[in-house]
């Protein structure tokens, strides 16, 4: 839910609660004011009558008099207001009235005089109150809605522009994000903080990258020396069985380290966009060469291979294309049973390789991560698919994996 919808939602909730409150409050307030007014009128009338009686000894005529009843000397008459209903013949129904009783002396006879004043029809009042309040609220809501919409469009414009810029931000790319300035201080503050944050992240990323590159670079020469010395040790021939195993283990681990380092360097170099060449690579030729190179391995594993290639040219780096397809085909050979199948298809849209093999328990998404191996027992490092993923990301290829009926299928779409 975006900000403006959310704001409007809360406005609406607020008004829904406010509405009956307003109607109720209005009702009681108006009733109070009207009653007070009526009471004042009646009080005033009673005083006029009393005055006339005292000064002129005349009982004045009044429209308000309901009745005047002579009462006993001791009958107490309190000055009080009452609400009552009186039947009016013209309307054929009960009409609400306000009544006021007071005592007066007419010809030394004590009288209880009752005054009446018709009251407003409260039902009607409520209806009208409801209508007017609703109208006011509707006007307020629509007004606020449009103002909100306008503010959202106009004042938040730089915010949304910056948002889209930040969405497209890629730390591995060299270009920096220039945030739109704004005259709203909160947005300016946000821009300042985000810029500072980006610079910090960029610096950290750069440092980390350099560190990685230096490590994998500097490690190579010592590794070469370790390997050479180990071979010399193995060649010296006067090793005991136990020592031999140690030396062999060191040698193998040094080899593994070297391979890891080489693969990681390759990944980081792909990430650094160091492969900028765009050769027009004929993928079918690349695949033919790779299959040629592995032909004997395929025979050795007694694999049945079906290859259907349509020539297709793709703009990419020749070296990377070679690595990518070598990895894919090699995996199909490697993770296969003796006497298994491989099927390779290539057309304009996609490259597809299907092979028999043990179905691994790894989630598909995990498969492309570094050091993730389908089968822990093999000596593979689990970097092949991570490298492939990087290459595909770089050229916008899409690499999908699925398995069916004990077959692995990797599909590579060239233009996704």
């Amino acid at each position, binding site marked *: 839910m975006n900000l403006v919808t959310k704001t409007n939602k809360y406005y609406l909730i607020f008004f829904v609660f406010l509405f009956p409150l307003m109607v109720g409050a209005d009702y009681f307030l108006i009733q109070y004011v009207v009653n007070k007014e009526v009471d004042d009128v009646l009080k005033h009338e009673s005083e006029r009558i009393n005055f006339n009686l005292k000064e002129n000894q005349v009982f004045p005529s009044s429209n308000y008099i309901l009745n005047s009843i002579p009462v006993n000397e001791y009958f107490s008459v309190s000055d009080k207001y009452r609400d009552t209903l009186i039947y009016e013949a013209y309307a054929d129904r009960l009409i609400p009235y306000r009544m006021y009783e007071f005592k007066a002396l007419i010809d030394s006879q004590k009288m209880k005089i009752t005054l009446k004043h018709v009251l407003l029809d409260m039902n009607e009042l409520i209806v009208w109150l409801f209508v007017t309040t609703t109208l006011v609220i509707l006007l307020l809501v629509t007004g606020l809605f449009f103002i909100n919409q306008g503010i959202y469009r106009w004042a938040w414009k730089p915010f949304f522009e910056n948002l889209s810029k930040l969405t497209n931000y890629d730390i591995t790319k060299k270009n920096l994000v220039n945030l739109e300035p704004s005259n709203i201080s909160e947005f300016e503050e946000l821009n300042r903080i985000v810029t500072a944050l980006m610079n910090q992240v960029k610096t950290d990323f750069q440092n980390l990258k350099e560190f990685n590159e230096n490590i994998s670079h500097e490690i190579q*020469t010592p590794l070469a020396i370790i390997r050479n010395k180990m071979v010399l040790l193995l060649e010296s021939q006067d090793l005991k069985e136990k020592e031999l195993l140690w030396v*062999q283990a060191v040698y193998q681990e040094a080899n593994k380290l070297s391979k890891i380092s080489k693969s990681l360097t390759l990944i980081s170099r792909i990430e650094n966009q160091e492969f900028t060449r765009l050769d027009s690579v004929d993928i079918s030729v690349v695949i033919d060469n790779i299959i040629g190179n592995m032909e004997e391995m395929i025979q050795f594993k007694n694999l049945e291979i079906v290859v259907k290639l349509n020539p297709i040219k793709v703009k990419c780096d020749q070296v990377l294309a070679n690595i990518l397809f*070598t990895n894919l085909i090699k995996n199909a050979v490697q993770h296969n049973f003796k006497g298994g199948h491989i099927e390779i298809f290539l057309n304009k849209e996609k490259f597809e390789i299907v092979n028999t093999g043990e179905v691994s328990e790894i989630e598909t998404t995990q498969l492309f991560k570094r050091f993730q191996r389908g089968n822990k027992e093999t000596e593979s490092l689990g970097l092949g698919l991570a490298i492939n993923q990087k290459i595909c990301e770089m050229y916008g290829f899409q690499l999908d994996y699925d398995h069916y009926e004990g077959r692995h299928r990797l599909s590579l779409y060239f233009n996704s």
Partner: protein
Amino acid sequence: MKILVIEDNIELLKDIKNFLEEQGNVCEIATDYKSAFMKAVIFPYDILIVDITLPDGTGLDIIKEVKKENIDVGIIIISAKNAVGDKVNGLEIGADDYLTKPFYLAELNARIKALYRRKAYKGSKEVIFNEIKISPDNHEVFINDRLMTLTKKEFDIIHFFVANRNRLLTKEAIAEHLWGDHIEMADSFNFIYTHLANLRKKITKFGGKDYIKSIYSVGYKFSE
């Protein structure tokens, strides 16, 4: 042949020098740009082994100078950088081959021999070891002058062995020679084992001696 090795890491330099001298080469060394440049320009060598990163300069400049002086020498770059850009640059300015550190000395040796053969004999020279004769350009192997048909990988193996005779070749070095970098073949050792067995059988069938010896479980040696 006479080889100049330019490398700033003394240990690695010693390893290379020892290995190449044991192969019967004359090997000189240089550890920095200045001395390397002096030697390369003044003395005649068959092969230069050049490390790109040197304390006081880059190996690429040495190659440029050598090429500018029109000195006829085979050049192999050894670099830890493994950058394709470097490789392309190096080969463009006139280097003949490129090896990424860490490399196997046997691989370096095989590359040096192949390069020397190409340069000195224009590729026509055959490699001969007792009754075995290898013609690298035609990918042919003769035993007692009888042509022996081999698969491509079998040829690569025997060629690699003969180039590195009397040295221990680890399985890893052989695998990398056969399939190159960036390929980790899970079954490669079994593959090598089987192909070596086939190769032995073929050679003995043609009346050759079995020169391939298994060294513990780590690798093989091709020797008398």
